[in-house]
């Protein structure tokens, strides 16, 4: 059987949940270098202009996504129904992402305002999760970001977050000019 075809199907089936390198090795019963070889071959195939999908590396997994240069066509079809996060939600997410795992009280301390409602919202959006209890009095919940969070911001792993202390305008722009993560992984 042609493994390249199986890999393509595998990526299609798993959708936004994605497939890790280990998943590929295990399912296709091949070693890592062979898996990478297949991924590179498939990726090249998708790079052709006549193809509408590509492989992205998001939240530590390979996923099939559309190409961003085709965005306008999809929007014509489905309209603009992106639901963006509020300023408060972004603030809380940033605080959790840089300090995880963290308790609600610690988040409140940094923001100077109660964050319980925002945390509930983020939990319902699967962007954060409870990962246990702190040893602080009252044993409050500890929160952490999820794989969905990484995907939502196009990140491959939590280490890809820009340095909290080194953010000026140029550095920010540099950040987005960065090569796609998939090039580094393969």
């Amino acid at each position: 059987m042609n493994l390249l075809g199986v890999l393509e199907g595998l990526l299609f089936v798993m959708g936004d949940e994605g497939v890790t390198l280990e998943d590929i090795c295990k399912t296709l019963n091949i070693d890592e270098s062979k898996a990478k070889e297949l991924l590179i071959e498939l990726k090249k195939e998708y790079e052709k202009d006549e193809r509408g999908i590509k492989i992205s590396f998001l939240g530590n997994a390979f996923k099939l996504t559309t190409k961003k240069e085709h965005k306008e066509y999809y929007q014509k079809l489905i309209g603009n129904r992106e639901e963006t996060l509020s300023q408060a939600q972004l603030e809380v997410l940033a605080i959790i992402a840089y300090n995880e795992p963290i308790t609600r009280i610690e988040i409140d301390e940094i923001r100077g305002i109660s964050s319980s409602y925002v945390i509930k919202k983020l939990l319902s959006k699967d962007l954060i999760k409870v990962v246990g209890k702190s040893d602080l009095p009252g044993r409050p919940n500890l929160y952490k970001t999820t794989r969905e969070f990484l995907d939502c911001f196009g990140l491959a792993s939590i280490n890809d977050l820009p340095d909290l202390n080194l953010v000026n305008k140029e550095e920010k722009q540099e950040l987005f000019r960065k090569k796609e993560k998939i090039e580094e992984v393969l």
Partner: protein
Amino acid sequence: MNLQLQDFEGPFDLLLHLVRISKMDIYTINISEIINQYIDFINSIDKNDIDKSSEYLVVSSELIHLKSKMLINKNEEEEENTEDEFSIKSEEDLREKLIEYEKYKNMTEVFRTLEENRADYYTKMPENLKEYVDEEKIINSDVSLNDLLEAFIGMQKRINFQKPLTTKITRKEYSVKEKISEIRNILQKKKTVEFSELFDIFTKENVVVTFLSILDMSKNSEIILKQDKIFSTIIIERVGK
């Protein structure tokens, strides 16, 4: 100032805004001036509005506290160590808190751009692969009917343990009449008794009834209440033979 509370994400956001419009560097800024502006702003807005976010008031009171400390130059004093999440301990503490908050606030811009970029391409939900999953086997060990029965009996036993042992709840009634004759009996044996000695059972009813009895007997000149000095023990003495 044409600002509303809705324009801010919280008291620190408001403070940062005040620092910015004052065109001063956060490291060198006159904290006392910023506190004044913050308090002026809080006073200027609709009171109904502020009810919705009490945190602004909490921080407001913390700032007034801080300012009063700064005025009387008592920064060194070790304050009661409050662990409250919104407490502001010193000028330096406030500065650090604002700098820390600003870092995350700035980072939200980056997050916003990342989020927008990610919206440029789409993925899809995973396929439903249920039909390929083998029927789950629920019972795979050899559980007999007897085992189930035993488990059930065991459970019933446990439920019984949770019930309280047989108890009877009764209410003891006290009457002033009874209590008075009780006190008379005591005073028959000895001429005087300490006030506190009469309160043998510390239930609310007993204390009240005993106290009423003493007042009643005193009113009828049956007993005399004596006290050497203020707050010392009260002695109850029988009148007559």
